[in-house]
């Protein structure tokens, strides 16, 4: 069968099982948009290509499938770069398809020409400029294979206009992939798993340090089995919120710069840290040399290059975490059956003391300024954790990660590694497309919101009833907090103002429901109202206290032992926290 390159592209996407693509057409990609019109693929027309990229990412976060975005050459393609870099940092499987100027014009500085494979080389798992129309199906199949296997990541396929217009012979699907240098790590080494189980059985102060890999590999059930049989507390990183239920007695909460005191302290005092699909990121470790100084390390990851990159492990385990965790849980169960349960009672008792003494703390006066933590906690309570929570980047993101009580995986979507402001609105869109009928709530900041708010138009037209809760403090809040703490309260160019734009009117202009909430006692009623809307997006302007900070906090580059509890704790409490009294030493 003879097809054009464009028809082959669309057909390949259909064969690949893609149901939705996010994109925006333009000159060089136009040939591909023609067959798209008569395709089974749903196309969501975004207002900015960055929105298409983040939507594709969140679709992947929410569904576990590969997200797809399409843009034209030049500026269309460069507008995807932020989303690609974001997906690369957070190992999110997306495929980006870009049009390119016709092959004979490449290199001539043609209209809307950009070397997008060159530009995205450091922020993609792989990319390719297709130079032969016969290769279109294989290039697409390879892109999906590379994006979704091993450590997932973004792949870009750049197709010149003349290749899209050329004629090719459609063969059978799937096409033969030509990837001799691409290897997905095989099953984990059984001896390493037995060694890890042995260490875990011997440990008196173990911590399971859980990263995004647990969610990506869908291994949360085996994680829970392992934690319970090993009686080992679990800390879930920003990338892994929801991998382990926060209400579970063994849950420590989030570690790191704005982690719970208990999680940070437990890692510092642990005699064994089992890292599962985590990468010892600086936001978790604080000053690396001082991280978990008493702990042996088991490090399980599918990416061999993560092993030993930041911290040398005692037991490295390379392979699919789903297999690793299942076997580790089995192995541990066998050990417990034959030799008895590990003795972690003193450790869990210590952890219980820390949780009681040094919880996440904020104060909400009934007639005082509204606190963002209160909004998050009320959302958590009103939904029972049954929501997909999306966040931008900054204070609101940390408050959401800290105070929402997550109950299940794939219910938390954010920009972790890259820290991309403006992520939330388009990401909520992508999550809602991937999981229609479920409640998707973006907790956003006023700074973030204004970077990508135009996708509200897309959501309204597509009838995607996302909720966007703006924690409007009139500042770039996290920057303001750093200027307060580290720059002598010199607030340099950080105030946005709360009133411009009028977010309620803006929402209404975009065909959304707009609400405002200024008092703590109104929060429940406003949230109820927002949650009741099912046909269009809802934006809520929460006027929150502009002085509220995010605590606890480990100052950047400092050891985790220097964790600051914040203004809600007395000097005596801070001293007690620093002494870290333990019954388990």
């Amino acid at each position: 069968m003879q097809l054009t390159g464009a028809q082959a592209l669309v057909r390949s996407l259909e064969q690949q099982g893609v149901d939705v693509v996010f994109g925006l057409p333009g000159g060089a990609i136009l040939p591909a948009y023609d067959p798209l019109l008569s395709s089974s693929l749903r196309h969501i027309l975004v207002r900015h290509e960055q929105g298409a990229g983040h939507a594709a990412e969140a679709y992947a976060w929410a569904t576990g499938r590969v997200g797809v975005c399409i843009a034209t050459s030049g500026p269309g393609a460069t507008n995807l770069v932020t989303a690609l870099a974001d997906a690369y940092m957070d190992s999110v499987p997306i495929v980006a398809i870009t049009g390119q100027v016709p092959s004979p014009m490449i290199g001539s500085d043609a209209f809307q020409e950009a070397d997008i494979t060159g530009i995205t080389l450091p922020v993609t798992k792989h990319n390719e400029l297709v130079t032969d129309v016969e290769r279109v199906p294989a290039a697409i199949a390879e892109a999906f294979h590379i994006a979704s296997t091993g450590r997932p990541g973004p792949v870009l396929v750049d197709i010149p206009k003349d290749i899209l217009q050329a004629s090719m012979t459609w063969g059978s699907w799937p096409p033969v992939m030509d990837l001799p240098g691409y290897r997905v790590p095989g099953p984990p080494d059984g001896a390493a798993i037995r060694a890890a189980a042995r260490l875990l059985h011997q440990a008196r102060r173990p911590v399971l340090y859980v990263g995004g890999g647990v969610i990506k590999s869908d291994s949360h059930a085996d994680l829970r089995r392992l934690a319970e049989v090993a009686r080992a507390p679990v800390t879930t990183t920003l990338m892994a919120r929801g991998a382990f239920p926060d209400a579970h007695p063994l849950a420590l909460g989030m570690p790191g710069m704005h982690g719970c005191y208990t999680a940070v302290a437990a890692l510092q005092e642990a005699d064994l840290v089992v890292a599962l699909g985590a990468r010892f990121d600086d936001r978790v470790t604080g000053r690396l040399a001082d991280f978990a100084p008493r702990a042996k390390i088991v490090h399980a990851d599918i990416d061999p290059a993560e092993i030993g990159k930041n911290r040398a492990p005692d037991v490295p385990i390379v392979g699919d975490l789903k297999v690793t965790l299942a076997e580790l849980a089995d192995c541990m169960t066998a050990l417990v059956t034959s030799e008895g349960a590990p003795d972690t009672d003193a450790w869990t008792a210590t952890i219980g003391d820390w949780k009681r003494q040094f919880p996440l703390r904020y104060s909400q006066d009934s007639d005082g300024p509204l606190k963002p933590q209160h909004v998050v906690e009320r959302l958590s309570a009103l939904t029972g954790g049954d929501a997909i929570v999306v966040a931008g980047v900054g204070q609101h993101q940390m408050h959401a990660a800290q105070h929402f009580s997550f109950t299940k995986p794939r219910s938390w979507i954010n920009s972790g590694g890259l820290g991309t402001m403006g992520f939330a609105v388009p990401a909520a869109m992508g999550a809602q497309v991937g999981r229609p009928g479920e409640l998707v709530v973006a907790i956003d900041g006023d700074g973030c919101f204004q970077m990508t708010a135009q996708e509200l138009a897309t959501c309204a037209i597509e009838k995607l009833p996302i909720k966007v809760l703006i924690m409007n403090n009139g500042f770039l809040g996290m920057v303001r907090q750093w200027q307060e703490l580290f720059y002598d309260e010199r607030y340099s160019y950080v105030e946005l103002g709360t009133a411009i734009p009028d977010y309620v009117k803006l929402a209404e202009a975009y065909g959304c429901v707009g609400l405002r909430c200024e008092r703590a006692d109104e929060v429940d009623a406003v949230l109820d109202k927002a949650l009741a809307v099912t046909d269009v997006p809802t934006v809520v302007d929460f006027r929150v206290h502009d002085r509220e900070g995010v605590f606890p906090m480990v100052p950047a580059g400092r050891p985790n032992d220097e964790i600051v509890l914040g203004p809600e704790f007395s000097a005596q409490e801070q001293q007690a926290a620093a002494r870290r009294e333990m019954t388990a030493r």
Partner: protein
Amino acid sequence: MSTHTLSVLVENKPGVLAHVAGLFSRRAFNISSLAVGPTQDERVSRMTIVVDGASTPVEQVSKQLDKLVRVLKVVELEEDSAVERELALIKVRADPAARGQLLEVAGVFRANVVDLSPTTLVLEAVSSPAKLDALLAMLEDYGICELVRTGRIGLARGSTVITDEDAGGAGSAALAQIAVDPAA
């Protein structure tokens, strides 16, 4: 300087060099030298990359290279179990008075004179990195006008060949032609 030599088999496709060079740049790895050329299999090129072990974590380099889709195999060549060579062309100031001494030095290092002018000569030297450094040190006193080096290349000694032994599937097929057992 403790250098490490990595022998890297890559697919002979457009953009491969950019992927490898981009990796070094992005991860802030330092390359001392890089030599690329075809192999006996036209689908495969070999890169010999020399990295400075003091400033660059060699294991990370190797693992990150291995993750590149177009990279087939990464092997570190150990100094005592590999032959390593580099070619240099050296234009040296050579007044008639100094010419005799220079030819003597060239002879000791088995360097050939490939061009001669009234005031200069060009030496062609092929040798191990250490020997080449020694030659250059000797020539310094006479005045080196211009120098070009190819970068180091190397092969493991003995019958060992770099193959794709730990990979299954398509990788083995592509490399079957170079995985020749010399004993067979």
